[in-house]
């Protein structure tokens, strides 16, 4: 299910799927940037919007009222990149090479628009030009034969493979030529130039942005989520590279597992000490009061877990760039905690013993409390 955005193109309303709207807005923004020095900028943008509107009309009928993301990608491909100042004779070899012959660089992305869980399988399918259902079947079979190990592999992939947010990424996932690539390349080149010219002011910008981002994160963590805020934090639009996102994904996974394991260990330690007075055979010195040991356990846990939690948050922020982190982050932590616990239960006998023990501990604790 996709959210639909209604837009006004030169006085006519059109309904677009949200990713289609994002792609269109990005296209128009880039066109405005390319035409920034052009005295007829507004008029050209109106003409371009009208041309896009005409093309949208071609995909619509009384029975079909919404333009899909795929269709918008095609429309924007047909439109082609908007040339900046025509006096500027920039070589166009790149765009022609991608338009003819070898094709664009294909990259592995998660493709959400055909996803069942997170789009890993449809992304792999798109990469190899296979039906995603074939990949899904292979995954399920592999999971059965390896008694669940492949599920962990899937989760790692879920983190490591960036999801295709923009139409460019979507096109790269499918190996479809996307002419706007040229605009992006140019934007990157210009960004490089700009960074050289004014690295100082850029750094200042970046600091401001970082601060905004941290504030944003805090408000997300407080359970407040706002798309506008996200757009503001995104405004300097420093692109996060593909490789960077893969690393961020892997780190996000590793740190999530570590924080989840720490949380479980902490809870078990707390309860086992509370009830048995000892921790894995270790006993506190006789003259130390119980509450002090518990407080020390809490402090130690905090000291160990906080840096990992911070690292995990940073990884998520890099991974998602601008997407809502707060809610999914916490949800994923719970899911991972459950999975880690399950694997420990199945594969690590000591952990299983501990958990069984802690069950007894919790039960005794509850009976003690209720009586």
């Amino acid at each position: 299910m996709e959210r639909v955005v209604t837009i006004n193109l030169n006085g006519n309303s059109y309904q677009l799927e949200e990713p289609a709207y994002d792609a269109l807005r990005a296209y128009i923004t880039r066109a405005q940037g390319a035409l920034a020095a052009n005295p007829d900028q507004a008029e050209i943008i109106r003409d371009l919007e009208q041309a896009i509107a005409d093309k949208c009309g071609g995909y619509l009928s009384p029975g079909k009222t919404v333009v899909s993301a795929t269709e918008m990608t095609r429309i924007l491909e047909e439109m082609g990149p908007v040339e900046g100042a025509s006096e500027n004779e920039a070589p166009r070899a790149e765009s022609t090479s991608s338009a003819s012959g070898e094709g664009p660089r294909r990259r592995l992305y998660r493709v959400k628009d055909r996803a069942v869980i997170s789009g890993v399988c449809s992304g792999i399918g798109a990469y190899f030009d296979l039906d995603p259902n074939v990949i899904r079947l292979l995954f399920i079979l592999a999971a059965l034969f390896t008694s669940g190990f492949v599920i962990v592999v899937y989760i790692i992939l879920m983190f490591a493979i960036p999801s295709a947010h923009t139409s460019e990424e979507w096109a790269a996932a499918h190996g479809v030529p996307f002419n706007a690539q040229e605009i992006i390349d140019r934007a990157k080149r210009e960004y490089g130039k700009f960074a050289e010219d004014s690295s100082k002011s850029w750094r200042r910008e970046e600091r401001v942005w970082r601060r905004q981002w941290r504030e944003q994160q805090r408000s997300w963590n407080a359970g407040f989520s706002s798309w506008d805020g996200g757009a503001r934090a995104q405004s300097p639009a420093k692109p996060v590279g593909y490789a960077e996102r893969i690393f961020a994904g892997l780190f996000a996974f590793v740190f999530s597992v570590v924080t989840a394991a720490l949380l479980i260990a902490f809870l078990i330690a707390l309860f086992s000490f509370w009830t048995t007075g000892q921790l894995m055979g270790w006993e506190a010195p006789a003259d130390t009061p119980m509450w002090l040991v518990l407080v020390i356990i809490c402090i130690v846990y905090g000291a160990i877990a906080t840096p990992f939690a911070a690292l995990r948050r940073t990884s998520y922020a890099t991974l998602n760039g601008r997407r809502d982190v707060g809610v999914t982050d916490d949800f994923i932590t719970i899911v991972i905690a459950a999975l880690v616990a399950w694997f420990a239960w199945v594969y690590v006998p000591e952990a299983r013993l501990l958990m069984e023990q802690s069950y007894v501990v919790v039960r005794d604790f509850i009976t003690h409390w209720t009586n």
Partner: protein
Amino acid sequence: MSSTDEQFAGLRKGLLEFAILTIVSGRTVYVGDILATLAPTPFATQEGTLYPLLSKLRREELVDYQWVESGQGPPRKYYQLTDKGAGRLAELAAYWRHLTTTLEGLGR
């Protein structure tokens, strides 16, 4: 063919203006006509390139447009060559002939 395409991209880009002036000189056209006329030729182009170029030509007063109601949809801009544009086109054509004869002459 594709490598030829790539090599001469710069050359074609320089000549696109010439091609558009030539099309506009024959008849009054809207952007769709220009795209369709160019599509089968080596000058095939896209809206993203064409609109900024037409706006530049209009600013230089080589072409002009007027709004014409179309049967379906909104009114369209129909472009035509101005007198100044006709002058420029004649200049370009003469210069182009000069260039090609020079190049042929060099080979002899």
